[in-house]
């Protein structure tokens, strides 16, 4: 690893044609893609929400269904961003050599990685908004404050796209991504207050949870869904932004090293 791998990101508007390229590919498969975005979170929301919800009188001061709805928006956004940054990103970088083709033009690797982050976040925003739309349709939230979940989904998407790109930069093959999902994404989903309040965890695990980005996303999402302005919003947003910036920079350094061979 040499010094120029660590230089600050040099971004330009040339990232935009790359984002348009990903969009054009996506438009060809849009129908099945949207179905995929909606099916998984809905199965969990409806299955757990109605099944488990009928056994639980209330959770966190609301019905279990409403409690779960806020968490579902966050984790489905996280999942969607992670999948895109890992599997699709790796495919474009490694399998299809799309990045290599783009780097022969005036576009640089920094632009490419930035476009990947933005694109994965765009796709996950769509995922979050789709889930949100269903939540509104089911009448689980009536507060106009729940509209704030749209920019929140974008932020959560950027955060997990950036973190996922670190894995993509390190991956020798697709198999590697299983570790990330089983050791990072799934535990995070269980620890971050998606399915039950973080306060139910033993104190040690509560501390772990407070360091996880998804916890901070849920802490903003849940009050908004219930029509309450979330306490400590700035702190939560700062944590998510921090993860995003660190994730982007670390992944960029690793991509520079990987692709300079």
């Amino acid at each position, binding site marked *: 690893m040499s010094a120029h791998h660590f230089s600050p990101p040099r971004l330009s508007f040339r990232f935009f*044609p790359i984002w*348009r390229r990903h969009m*054009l590919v996506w438009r060809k498969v849009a129908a099945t893609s949207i179905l995929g975005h909606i099916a998984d979170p809905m199965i969990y929301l409806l299955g757990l929400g109605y099944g488990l919800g009928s056994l639980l009188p209330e959770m966190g001061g609301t019905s279990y269904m409403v409690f779960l709805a806020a968490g579902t928006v966050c984790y489905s956004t996280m999942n969607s961003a992670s999948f895109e940054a890992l599997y699709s990103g790796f495919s474009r970088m490694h399998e299809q*050599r*799309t990045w290599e*083709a783009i*780097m022969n*033009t005036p576009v640089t690797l920094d632009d490419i990685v930035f476009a990947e982050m933005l694109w994965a976040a765009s796709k996950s925003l769509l995922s979050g908004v789709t889930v949100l739309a269903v939540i509104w349709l089911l009448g689980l939230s009536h507060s106009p404050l729940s509209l704030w979940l749209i920019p929140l989904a974008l932020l959560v998407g950027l955060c997990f796209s950036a973190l996922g790109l670190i894995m993509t930069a390190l991956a020798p093959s697709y198999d590697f991504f299983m570790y990330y999902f089983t050791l990072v994404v799934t535990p995070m989903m269980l620890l971050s207050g998606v399915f039950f309040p973080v306060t139910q965890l033993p104190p040690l695990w509560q501390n772990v949870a407070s360091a996880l980005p998804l916890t901070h996303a849920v802490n903003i999402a849940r009050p908004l869904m219930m029509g309450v302005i979330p306490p400590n919003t700035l702190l939560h947003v700062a944590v998510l932004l921090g993860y995003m910036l660190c994730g982007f920079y670390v992944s960029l350094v690793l991509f520079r090293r990987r692709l300079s*061979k």
Partner: protein
Amino acid sequence: MSAVLSAHSLRKSYGDQVVVDDVSITLNKGECYGLLGPNGAGKTTTLRLMLGLIEPDGGELSLLGHAVPRHAREARLRVGVVPQVDNLDPDFTVTENLLVYGRYFGMKDNEIKARIPALLAFANLTHKRDVKIPTLSGGMKRRLTLARALVNDPDIIFLDEPTTGLDPQARHLIWQRLHELTVQGKTLLLTTHFMDEAERLCHRLAILDHGRMVAEDSPRELIAQHIEAQVVEVFGEQAEAWVHEHAAHYSDRYEVSGETAFCYVNDAQPLLKHLQAQHELRYLHRPANLEDVFLKLTGREMRE
């Protein structure tokens, strides 16, 4: 007239391994320049250095008047690249590949669309314009990659083994197109390990081995300077015995590879007369070519 590309004392190492070692090349407008070398000689790394995709450990590099790698982005606006491995977008049609690629150069859609018919005609792909990439043959993909490299109307085109893996018909069509480009005044820099390709296309070429330039000149001059004019290849079961007794006497220089003796001579007549009497031997008499120069300079051992 300033050079299209000038590289001076380029060096690049990976760990202890020196991959590009003191390479200096100057390209003039409208010339086709070849980089020849065995696998691992540093050809592709040299191209990547020239495009500013990797940082050199030393040396000076200027491409179309821009210092590289510092201003590589500006330089690449006027450069086309045909990579060694196909990286067309498999999800797109032929036309979409050209359109999307043009956008990376900052071209407007109507500007690109105006160029597409001519690019398709150049690549003989007009009838395939709305077809998806996986259905194209290897030759069609290469031609589309070449057309894609021309979307920004570049001044110089880098081609990394442009005809590897193609059948003879497809190779000849690519050669014809590359020749047309030089006639239009485009500068070409290509790597290859096909000697006939280099001899046919390149005005000048450099032979690279272990990252170093071991020779540089026109194909004709390289042959004239580095090797005897004629080659007689002697083969057959008795060839080995014959070599021991006669090869040194009848040839200026000889090499044995497998069951074949390569006898290099300036005057072939005495050797041919002798061989006509040796009925158990077969032989082939031909003028020396670039491959002979290449093998003399880089040796006959396999490179992996």
